[in-house]
């Protein structure tokens, strides 16, 4: 059997996923990267995007999860992703997200303070990523 990597996906509320995998694609803030077993130790921030977990089960399925940013820690033989929220891509609904983007755009137009503008912009960029993932 091929060498595996111990993968953990953790949210503040609970351990979302813990399994042996063959490879994981992580949306790092400096660009996506793929983690195989024996990857060099690295700690990085993650932008909102899709994590692809390969070889999680015996099937050749790829588990795709959308995560709302966080941190990834690659150590010797393990990968830990800390995130606030993760949604399986299959559960994303395109129409819902589009509606939310429209709402967020309206928020941006209505925004009076810098603070509001910033939160609205953040929401839009997050939702756009989400839409890309859902497509």
């Amino acid at each position, binding site marked *: 059997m091929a060498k595996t990597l111990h993968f953990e996906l953790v949210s*503040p509320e609970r351990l979302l996923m813990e399994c042996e995998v063959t490879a994981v694609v992580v949306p790092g803030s400096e660009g996506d990267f793929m983690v195989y077993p024996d990857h060099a130790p690295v700690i990085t921030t993650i932008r909102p995007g899709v994590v692809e977990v390969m070889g999680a089960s015996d099937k050749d399925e790829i588990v795709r999860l959308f995560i709302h940013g966080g*941190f990834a820690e690659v150590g010797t033989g393990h990968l830990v992703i*800390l995130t606030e929220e993760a949604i399986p891509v299959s559960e994303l609904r395109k129409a819902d997200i589009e509606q939310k983007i429209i709402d967020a755009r309206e928020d941006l137009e209505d925004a009076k303070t810098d603070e509001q503008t910033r939160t609205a912009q953040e929401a839009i960029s997050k939702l756009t990523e989400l839409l890309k993932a859902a497509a």
Partner: protein
Amino acid sequence: MPNLKDLKIRINSVTSTQKITQAMKMVAASKLRRAQEAAEASRPYAERMEKVLTDLGHSMAGNEGASPLLVGTGKQDVHLIIVATSERGLCGGFNSSIVKLAKLKIEKLIADKKKIKILCIGRKGHLQLRRQYNQLIVDVIDLKHVKRLAFSDASPIAGRILKMFEDGEFDVCTLFYARFKSALTQIVTEQKMIPAPIAEANDEAEDDLGGAAYEYEPGEAEILEALLPRNVSVQLFRALLENAASEQGARMTAMESATRNAGEMIDDLTLQYNRSRQASITSDLIEIISGAEAL
């Protein structure tokens, strides 16, 4: 001596009180289990975060441009005291003991001529604190509508605290809550949140890294910058979870002893009831006998 009817009424009322406390105990026990599970489930995240933070904190603490969240503002003039308590009463000394410790700290800081701001999370703590420190309380956060505490409940509170910090409204932030040890013991804890306390790196932790030097992307400073605000949310979230578990534990214990006390009271009252019943029968009999003798 109370008459028979009064005693009967009292016995009935104590019995129904006992039923209520008994039910509350059961409810608290099942809520406690859930709260405990939630608190345990949050552990891996917090532990990982702490590890990374400790690592980074040590290499960054000496640097000039380190985040004020880590090294502080350089002043210690204004203290923000966060008092996390429950929304409901009937949980023994749970709220009082948290408030007591917080008050001690507040008095000490006042004696040191520091300025104090208080943020209450939970209604009960506010009710106890407002008598003495009403003008110091900046806000009360009500979590009454929250059935199951989620991270999304804690992060807006943390966001507020961070905003206050950015606006220079305080220098040091301390959180008071009860750490859950067991259903019988909850430990009231004072936790420093800002500046972030960095645990002393022990040799064991060094070994844990297995000599693997981490590479940081984009850079140590940037990661720390993103990590520290998150750490505040996580710490707050954990404290609230621990608090929720402690509250249920305290309530369970309190209700158990209330049920026991009610049981004792019922026994006493029943004894008294039977005695007075006998006494009245005896006196009735004496009256009849003496009446018959008089004839």
